[in-house]
């Protein structure tokens, strides 16, 4: 087993997830780290957001994290050997007002990582763009859609249900443009 200091973000997320699971805490990776994984690290985030899907007591998470050397500081968990920060955003696991049902499993050297699907990852990023006009989140959504096969019909349905038709059109237009330029450059999708 690699030491925590040598683990990549995805390996560390997998390791923490597996450790918590042994303690009866089920967490799913979401947020920026999911974007990193799905974009072959084209987007880099130091945060590891693990959503606790069973709503366990915070103390249980703190104890389990302390067992593997993490210390809680202002609701974030830090380890002296890594720059990555682990956070447990409040559940339920959702995008907009809809629950996340489909969970992906991705294999790493430290185990199998449970992560929201690429389609939900795009929706998660788009939510920040839709609600706060956050351009970084739009860029991340576009990156995931470029690198992964995503359900555009589902993303459209969800976008319309949140009343964001115009914003979805902007995403789609940029996504189509990217697709065309990528085809010219001969790039291929990964994973």
């Amino acid at each position, binding site marked *: 087993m690699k030491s925590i200091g040598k683990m990549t973000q995805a390996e560390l997320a997998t390791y923490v997830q597996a450790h918590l699971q042994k303690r009866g805490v089920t967490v799913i990776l979401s947020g920026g780290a999911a974007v990193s994984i799905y974009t072959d690290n084209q987007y880099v985030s130091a945060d590891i957001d693990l959503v606790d899907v069973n709503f366990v007591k915070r103390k249980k998470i703190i104890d389990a994290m302390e067992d593997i050397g993490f210390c809680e500081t202002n609701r974030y968990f830090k380890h002296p050997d890594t720059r990555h920060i682990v956070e447990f955003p409040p559940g339920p696991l959702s995008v907009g007002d809809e*629950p996340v049902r489909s969970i992906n499993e991705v294999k790493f050297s430290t185990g199998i990582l449970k992560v929201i699907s690429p389609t939900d990852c795009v929706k998660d990023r788009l939510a920040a763009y839709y609600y706060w006009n956050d351009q970084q989140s739009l860029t991340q959504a576009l990156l995931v859609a470029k690198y992964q096969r995503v359900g555009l019909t589902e993303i459209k349905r969800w976008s319309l249900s949140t009343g964001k038709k115009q914003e979805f059109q902007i995403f789609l237009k940029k996504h189509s443009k990217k697709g065309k330029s990528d085809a010219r450059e001969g790039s291929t999708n990964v994973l």
Partner: protein
Amino acid sequence: MLEPLLGSKSSEKVLIFIEALGEGYAREISRFFGTALTPIQKQLDKLELGGILVSSSKGRTRIYTFNPRYPFLKELKVILDKALSFYPENERERLLMNRRRPRRRGKPL
């Protein structure tokens, strides 16, 4: 009014204030209701940690709004709106008529 459901009076005050005005900060909310600052700050913290509110800094003030990504936001707002309609007329007026338009610095009135 919603204390039995929300668990505290401060929580109700915070949520009702933000529902009525769209945003708020701790001192403003505590002043409005004439209550101590600390319990309001605690509730704002708690509601942010729970994903119900989000905050951002404007100068030295931390402004709180509803988290549009909170999955039960629509339903919560329905309850708050209903509760607001049961508030005494003068309290509701004070909340809804709270000045939000700009005021030039140093203006006497």
